């Protein structure tokens, strides 16, 4: 198997991270924001795997498992809150969630 340089993996992860981040910044719909966060988390996971691959350790992959689990709980809670939010405001626009300010 031809070895892929670690940097490539990291750069890919970086690009994914920035894409996810842009999603968080640009989208207003909560669901999409949650999705974008998933992308960011997974990009971090990818970076871990790339790094683990560089050192030939399983640690990176283990971290990825942690990240997966964490992302799942986060989405679970996040969707519940989004639902509640929708019930109250009849919208999923996060900008509507700005009653507290100043």
């Amino acid at each position: 198997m031809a070895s892929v340089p670690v940097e490539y993996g990291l750069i890919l992860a970086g690009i994914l991270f920035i894409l996810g981040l842009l999603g968080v910044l640009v989208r207003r719909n909560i669901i999409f924001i949650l999705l974008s966060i998933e992308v960011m988390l997974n990009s971090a996971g990818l970076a871990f795997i790339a790094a683990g691959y560089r050192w030939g350790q399983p640690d990176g992959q283990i971290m990825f498992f942690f990240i997966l689990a964490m992302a799942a709980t986060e989405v679970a809670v996040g969707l519940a809150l989004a639902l509640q939010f929708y019930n109250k405001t009849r919208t999923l626009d996060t900008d509507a969630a700005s009653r507290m300010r100043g």
Partner: protein
Amino acid sequence: MIMFKLLWLIPALPFAGFIILALTGSRLTRTRTAVIGAGSAGLSMVITILTGIRFIGSPPPGNAYVQVLWTWMSVGGFRPEIAFRLDALSLAMITVVTAVGFLIHLYSSEFMAGDEGYSRFFAYMNLFVGSMLTLVLADNLLLLYLGWEGVGLCSYLLIGFWYKDTYNGYAARKAFVVTRIGDTAMGIGLFLLFTVLGTLQIQELMQRALQQWGSGNVMAGAAAALLLGGALGKSAQLPLQTWLPDAMAGPTPVSALIHAATMVTAGVYLIARTHVLFSLAPLVQAAVAVIGAVTLLIAGFSALTQSDIKRVLAYSTISQIGYMFLALGVGAWSAAIFHFMTHAFFKALLFLGAGVVILGLHNEHNMFKMGGLRKQLPLTFWTFLIGAASLSALPLVTAGYYSKDLILYSAWASEAGSPLLWAAGLAGALLTALYTFRMVFLVFFGEEKTRVERKPGMQIKIPLIILAVLSIIGGFVETPASLGGLHIFTKFMYTALPPVVNLPLPATGEFILEIEAALAPPIGIFIAYLFFLYRPRYTGRLASTPSGSALHRFWFSGWGFDWIYDRIIVRPFLWFARIDKNDFLDLPYLGTIWAGKGVNRLLVHTQTGKVRWYAVGIVIGAILALSAMVFL
């Protein structure tokens, strides 16, 4: 010595009177108030006279007696004492102060009878007498300074005695502030003297000055100049004379006691006391003479144009003190004190007489509304006339003649004298006679214009008579060579003050000078008769010409000094006070507050409540931190 041991009682008695009156307030009856007020001054006078007799009878060793009461303080080598010194100079002063003071107290007990502030008046008067005596008796300059400020305070309190009138308050403050300018100079003088010579005890100071400083020494000059500053303020000499005419706002007895007889001459006393310093600083001493000469002329001209009888007397006082300064300036210390004494008698007399007139005419001060009063107030007229004659230095019969003649003679003959000074003095003598008799003619001669409502009683008459007598005989203790050559007063003074150093002058020269000095007053009186009694219209016509009226206004306003001071000192001060009322040094702090508020408003705008914006914040932070990595 037992008599001397009572020395402290002389100032203490009036102080005690003050304290009693201040504490009891208006609860005492008027009679009791008067008894305490005048009584304490009278008792003080009695002790003074007894002490004086004893002093002349058997002088203490060194011709001086010092009584130390307690050590005021002792700090870093500075060790002033509360101590009184009795010598010829102070004895002469306290005699005049207590005697005139008592007479005026007596006069006031009737004069002020209708006033609601009766006890307050006597309290202040007693405080004044006490302070004045402290000033005169003080053995060191700090205690002298205490008395000095004390009399200034009383002057303030009494000028503004009728406090409900705002103008009186203004006049009082003006007096205090202007004199305090001089006092501050004097204070700095004290710092200088102590710093360089290490003591403020007067005799020791003089000795050390003699030892450490030669004639013309800069330090001596500075010290003398600074003390002179104090004297100028207190004695209303150029350029600090402006307060005295306004000080006439006070009750007339106050003008008589404080602003004629005693306090205003404190400057003369101070210079005489510290004459050693002035001798060491010929330049400053010359300045004293010149200031005296100029002042006596300027004030004389101003007196000529006044319509308020008390202001005439006030300018006259300035002018007469000018004579005393002239005397001091030429080194005729005793002559100055001699003139102080006679001046105290006749000027107090004139003021008291004027007071009777004013009281009789319902507080009328304008001489042009008076006239022909000699029939209605005969005693007042005659005593006033005596006083006027004495002030004009009418030859031979008046005290004023002898003292003024001595000054004029010294101005010519003294080492430090000069014909110019003499000429100024002579011109002043003529002027004095002119304005004095202008006043006499306007008030007591001519047609009767008003009725006198209130005639003086005994308490007023007695002081008038006594002072009239003193105004005549007071001069016979010192006569020129051609008139018997009595030198009782100066000889006595020589135990405390050095004699004047005269250039050798032929006896005929002295005689010629005397003739000239004797001629000036009658000429002045004649001119006054001409212009104000015989042909008053001349004056009116003269005053209505453009230059005449301008000159009249110029003299009337006291040579424009008030105007200048108002422009260069008072107004800038008020202007600054007005614009800076809210303290512009606070602006930077207010600016900080505004900046804080501004930043707060800005930051509050960042808290939009929108989650995406918050995320932007995090990203910006991350970018900044990462770029720091690149750049650092």
